[in-house]
Each structure stands twice: as C-alpha cells, then as structure tokens.
C-alpha cells in the first residue's frame, strides 16, 4: 500500500470539497474519496440553490454560526473563482393574520443571528416589489442579504482548487470498511485501500454508515426528500426576489426562487423516506408544490417546465449539525448538514481546519494555485456573448446546446478540466448543456457525437451514462 495520507476526506459533496480545498492550502497529503462518479452528485446537486444568510436558524446553534460564517466566505469566494451568485434578496410573505404575527418573531430571530438590514413590508409595498404575487398577501419581510448560488459550480470549484493544489481525488470509491492500528486508518474502498492518519466524514446521507465504521452511533440519517419543479426562462420575469412562506414548526415550506441560470424553481416538499437512493418524484409531491406555487405566483403554472427532480437532505434526529471531533480516534464527523450545507460549506471547512490543527501540525504552503471557473451564470458574460473570446477561438461561437446556449468550446474545456466531466451528466452540471427546455430534442445527438469525438470513446458509452 502507498504511504498513508495525512487526511482522508470521505465524500466529495460541497462540504467534503470545501474541506479538501481548505486542507490543500497546507503542506498535507490529502485524499478526497467519493462513492459516486463525480464531485457533487448527492445532496449537493439537488437542492434549492439558495445562498442563506442564516437569518432563520436557531440562535446559538452550530448551524446558525456556520451558515453566517459560510455566507460571508462564500460571497467572497464566489467572486474570486467565478461561482454564479446573485444577491436577489428574499421576501417572506405572510398570507393570513397568524402568519403576520410571526413576522416580528422572525425579525428578532434574525437580529439574534446577527443578520441585519431586514425590513417589514406592507401589502402594498410587497405588490410593488413583486407585482405577479397572487392575491391575498397581507404583509412581508424583506431579507436583503439572501441570494441564489450555482449548486453545481460551487463544489466543482472547490474540488478543482483542491486538485490543482495537490489533493488526490478518488471517484467511484465507496468506503465500506475501516481498520485501524491506533495511528493509521485503512479505508476499504474498492481494489485500492486508502491509508490515512486522520479521517473526515463528510459522507452526507451515508454519514451515519461511516460513523458506524468508527464505532460511533451518535445519530441516524433519515433522508428527507424534497421534490422540485424548474420552470423555463420565460418565467424569470415573474419575480425578482426569493419568495419564502412563513415557516411552521415542522417545515420551511415551499418557496419560489429565481436560479442563476435564469429559471424559476418551485419547491421543495419535505417527506421522510427510508431509501437513501430514492430520488423519485411522485404525483402527490408535484401536485402539492404546483398548488402552492399557483397561489404564490399564479402566472407561473402556465409557463413551461424544464425539469422536475427530487433531492434528499441528510436529516437526523437532531435539528443541528452533527460536528464531532475525536482527537484520540483521529476522526472528525461533519454530519447532519441538512439543507444549508451549500451556504455553510466554507464555514464548516474553516471550522474543520481549526479542529484538525490542534493535534495535526500544518503549515501554509508558500504558493497556492488559484482557479477560475467558466462563466455559466446568467449574470455573467457567457462564452456565446464574449466577442473577444469567440474571435480568439471560434469554438466559443459554435452553439451546440441552443436552449442553454452552450458552445463547443465550453464542452471541450469541461472534458479537459482538472476535474473533467466523464459523461453527459457531468457535462450538464459543468456547462448547462441538456438542462434546457428541449431536454435534448435538438442537441442530444450532436452532443453525443461531439463528446465521442473529443474523448475517442464510443457514443453508446455516453448514452448509457445520461441520467
């Protein structure tokens, strides 16, 4: 077996990728282990893509602290590496008297969480800001800091930065066993076991399984399924803020939000399920969110739907994050990161490094390579509208996915990047191809041929991989 790593991070979702990136700043040998075929294929790829301020977290909780810190770090990091982010602000809408009286309570909570700038809105102000709101909105609360973020680019940027700074990325490697002699852990994950002095558990839905391998049973992950509907870009004009309902004791409710790709997202449901891989949508779930969406934005339901999907949040019996460090065991657990992981990820990673830096000596590397992600957000100058880029390389003027305006140059780049796309599914998250309204009606055949040509692999391999 090869020499042991200093740290093995299990799980290349947004939390694991953030930890690997943070560790890559130090002269450590780090490995990032992922069960799936790519970075960010679990909870990280199917969520509401909101960049939360943490205004409504439970004051004093680990989640409240790390979301607030993660929000600040993400805002800066996104600008640095080119993760699409838009600070749209959110409107919390109260539809009846019971909800109206909740608004000051939420305001107080936000203040306790250090979230500033909130403003109460009368019904008239609400309709002036969001003229397409359905009838009956009574009052609202504006949270100007809330925003939207690209859930695909964020973990990819972090993993890419980690890889170009020396972190080893092992995909298709599900950790199924752990043996330890007290100082070195050997993780069984396929034909090549991985030895490491410290292990970070960022396994998301499987965090409790990894806990078990270390003899710990502090929580159980009970996936909470959320079904969502994505509307086409023509719906984007219907709203300018994230539209939130007043949360109840049990759920944050169904929201309507713009996306950084210029679509509109409606959802999620919240259903506890047993199967950690059951990402199927249901008739009841879709009808439920449609009914909610029809009340909030009646015009939305006449628009075309480009996607429906379900994500699984890694919920546990606790409402707070399950972050536990065992210095003697050399094991750090980052579990129970439910729906705020994308916002909190950089805060969680910073906290993880602080914890590990106690027993694990680490010094900052002298030079770190920076990364710059391709501009996929609607708020950016995309390749197809970048005259100088097209003049330099005509492949950026050759649109191959018309609905999302993805060019052959971007497809090529994604196949050759440090964390390359290995199939159409990976390309979809890196470039937006096939994400649009036609879902491949026009472009699938051409894309398959293009990718086969670029990679020298048979076209059939890519058709099988497309999900």
């Amino acid at each position, binding site marked *: 077996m090869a020499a042991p790593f200093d740290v093995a991070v299990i799980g290349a979702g947004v939390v694991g990728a953030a930890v690997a990136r943070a560790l890559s700043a130090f002269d450590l040998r780090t490995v990032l282990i992922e069960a799936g075929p790519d970075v960010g294929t679990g909870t990280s790829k199917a969520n509401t893509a909101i960049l939360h301020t943490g205004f409504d977290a439970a004051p004093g909780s680990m989640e409240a602290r790390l979301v607030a810190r993660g929000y600040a770090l993400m805002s800066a990091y996104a600008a640095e590496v080119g993760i699409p982010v838009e600070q749209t602000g959110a409107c919390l809408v109260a539809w009846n008297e019971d909800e109206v009286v909740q608004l000051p309570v939420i305001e107080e909570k936000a203040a306790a969480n250090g979230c500033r700038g909130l403003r109460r809105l009368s019904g008239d102000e609400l309709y002036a800001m969001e003229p397409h709101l359905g009838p009956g909105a009574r009052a609202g609360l504006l949270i100007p800091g809330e925003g939207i973020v690209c859930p695909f680019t964020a973990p990819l940027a972090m993993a890419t930065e980690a890889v170009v700074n020396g972190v080893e990325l092992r995909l298709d490697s599900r950790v199924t066993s752990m043996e330890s002699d007290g100082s070195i852990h050997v993780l069984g994950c396929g034909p090549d076991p991985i030895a490491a002095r410290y292990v970070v558990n960022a396994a998301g839905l499987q965090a409790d399984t990894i806990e078990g391998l270390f003899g710990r049973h502090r929580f159980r992950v009970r996936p909470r399924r959320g079904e969502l509907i994505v509307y086409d870009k*023509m719906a984007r004009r219907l709203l300018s803020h994230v539209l939130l309902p007043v949360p109840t004791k049990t759920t944050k409710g169904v929201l309507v939000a713009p996306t950084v790709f210029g679509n509109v997202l409606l959802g999620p449901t919240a259903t506890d399920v047993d199967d950690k891989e059951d990402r199927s949508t249901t008739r009841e779930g879709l009808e439920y969110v*449609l009914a909610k969406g029809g009340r909030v934005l009646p015009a939305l339901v006449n628009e*075309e739907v480009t996607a429906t999907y379900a994500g699984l949040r890694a919920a546990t019996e606790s409402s707070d994050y399950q972050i536990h460090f065992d210095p003697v065991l050399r094991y750090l657990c980052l579990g129970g990161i439910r729906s705020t992981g994308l916002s909190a990820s950089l805060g969680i990673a910073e906290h993880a490094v602080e914890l590990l830096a106690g027993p694990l000596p680490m010094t900052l590397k002298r030079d770190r390579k920076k990364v710059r992600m391709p501009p996929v957000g609607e708020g950016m100058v995309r390749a197809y509208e970048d005259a100088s880029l097209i003049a330099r390389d005509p492949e950026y003027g050759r649109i191959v996915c018309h609905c999302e305006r993805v060019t052959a140059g971007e497809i090529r780049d994604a196949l050759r990047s440090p964390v390359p796309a290995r199939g159409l599914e990976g390309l979809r998250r890196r470039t937006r191809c096939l994400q649009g309204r036609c879902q*491949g009606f026009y472009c699938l*055949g051409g894309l398959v041929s293009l990718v086969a040509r670029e990679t020298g692999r048979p076209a059939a391999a890519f*058709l*099988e991989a497309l*999900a």
Partner: protein
Amino acid sequence: MVIVGGGPAGLAAAAELRRRQVGRVLVLEREGEPGGIPRDCHHAGFGWPDLKRMMSGPAYARGCAARARAAGAEIWTESSATRWRGARTLQVTSPHGLFDVSGRAVLLATGCRERPRAARLVPGTRPAGVLTTGALQRIVHGARERAGRRAVVVGAEHVSYSAVHTLTASGTEVAAMITDLPRHQTYGPLAWLAAGRHGIPLLAQSELTRISGKGRVDGVEVTHRTTGATQSIACDTVVFTGDWIPDHELARAGGLAMDPGTRGPRVDASYRTSGPGVFAAGNLLHGAETAGIAALEGRASAAGIARFLADGAGWGAPVVPLSVTRPLVWISPNALGLPEAAPVDHPFVLRVAEFLRDETVDVRQGARILHRERFRALVPNRSIRLRGGWTRAVVADGGPVLISTASRPREGEAR
C-alpha cells in the same frame, strides 16, 4: 430581409421573397446544415402539400435549401440569433464572431419542439433512456446508435409512428404505444403497419403515470383514464412523442403578442405579428404541422413581407382576433389585420381536442355567420384546413370573430 430559422418555412419564404425581387435575403440557421427537422426524418412522406412529389426527409431538406440558394438567398449556418438588439436587429453568435444583423423586416421561423418528459410532469426516477422523437432520430441517424432494446412510445399521432419506424428499423422492439385519446390519430395504413406487422399494442385512454429504474429505465406504469387500472411494462427506453410547443422564446423575448391557444406569436392572415416589420410563419405559429404545410405558410408569408418592404405600411390598422371554443383548440393565423391588404386565399389551420364525425364548423362575427364548412371527420393532433375567403366579410368594429362547431356552439369557455 432577415429570416430566423432555416427549416421548411424559412427556406420557402426566402426562395419566394427572392422570386418577388426582394434584394438581399439572409437566412440565419443555428445548425450546421439547413433544412430543419426533416433532415433527421429518414422516411418517405415529405413534399406532397407544397411540391406535389413524395420524398424522404433528408432529400426534402436538401431541396428546400437548394431552392432558396438557387433563388439567390444567403444561408448562414451555425448562426444563432441570441438576442434582440433593436426592433428589427438581432445579435448573432457564430464561429465567425459575435455581431448584429439588421433587416428592414424580420421573419421568425424558429419551428417547434416536442414537450419532453419533465414538461409533462411524469413522476418517477430520472434514469437514462427517456427521449423525445427528436432526440431519438438524432441519436439513431446522427450518432448512429441504437436507442435501446425495448421501448414504450407515448403518443399515437403521425410523429409517434415516425418514432416507431425509427425504433424498429434500428433494432429496438416497441413494447407498446400509449395515447390518452380513444384511438390513434394517424393515417390508417401507418397504424395498421405498427399494430399488424410489428404487433405493437396501442393502449388507448391511458397515461404514463410513472417511470422507474436507477441508472437506466427498467419499466413504466400505465394507468387507464376511466377505470384507473394500472399495468407495468418492462422497457429500457421511453420515447415521448408529439405534444408540440412552438419554439417561441425569441418571439416572447421580443415582446410580441402571443396566442393563448397555439402558444405561438399572434399573427394575422398576412403573417404579421404585433411587432412592426416582424413576421412569423411555420411551426412557430402552432407546433408541428407537416413540413409541407410549414413551407406553404413560409411561401404565403412572402407576399405580405414583399408588400411591407415595398411600402412600409401595414401596422397600426385595427386587428380583429379570431377565437375558438371547445372542442376546437386553436386556429392559425389567429387574427385579421383590417383591411387585409390582399384577399386571404390560403386556408387557416385548425385543431380539435376530440374525435368528431360529420361536424360543421361555423365562423361568426357577432350574430352574422360568415362561413360554414362541413367536415366528414375531425381528428385531434391532425391538421384541419379551413378555407379562407370569408375574411373580406369581417368588419373592424364588429367584435371578435368566433369559430366553433355547429353542434356545440357555446359549450366550454371562449378562449
């Protein structure tokens, strides 16, 4: 003159505009080859309405482009109109650069697409192997791959049988066809071929209610609409066919008035949209009619465009909307700009929601019946052509023109 879309409608308009001595006609085509959807339809059945000849899709597509070029139109391929930069100016992205193109008039002929699985809100998992006919044909004929081993085809209209043909010819067994209507909506011989020769069962009055499979499709659940009975069918491929929607994004981005029935831009009988100097024709107006019908519309639109280019007039006159009531779903063109500068000699296209026999369609304005036409059979998802001629009896101040079936003139709500 700038034409967006080098399919049958755009190319036919280009050729006719040149024949009418329009100086410079430019067709923007986003794909590498002009010709539109027929390029990928490797079967016979193209050309009858417009050319009175039968040929294959690719041959028809090549012919459309050749006639436009021979007439002197320019066709720029790999050129996408990506943004409006003025009332008749478009930003174009192409490997040759990013630039603006302006015309004295613009014709939108951007075609249509099939609604994919997501747009139909079919629940279940999201495995590989779920396609539209368009994607299927490009995989089989473009990438030269077999789609799968066993497929279920959703739909039983013309294009559904085209999908069946593509599947069976490339070695994929078709397990079943599914339609929510009581029977198929295509020509008898096509349905006979699928059911008789290939033994494909047609599950009528049924809906696809669930897709299952992790990684790859492993089956579907089909529910009967009236009895609620469900059955499971094992398959590794699902093809969603038909349920067309105009590719109307450029039209909507340009702020053009839209027709709620067709979901395409509203046009009058001269193919004028609400945008001065902006015309629209072909399947952008109403979803898929055959390529020949789209080409005829393109050709017909050239008359109005040539008039506009000659005198610049035509907008600002009263527009009388044409509305339909159930069981009619839409009519196209769906307005009259008064006075229409020339008699409307081309027919209107109609759609119905259900099968009707020996039905009369009435056209009224107020209490006046302007036109009655009897049809032996009206079939959903099939083109119905209503004669023109009556348009000169429409008056500007007589209210909307209502088209309905004689047996149920006031049933349902007006659209």
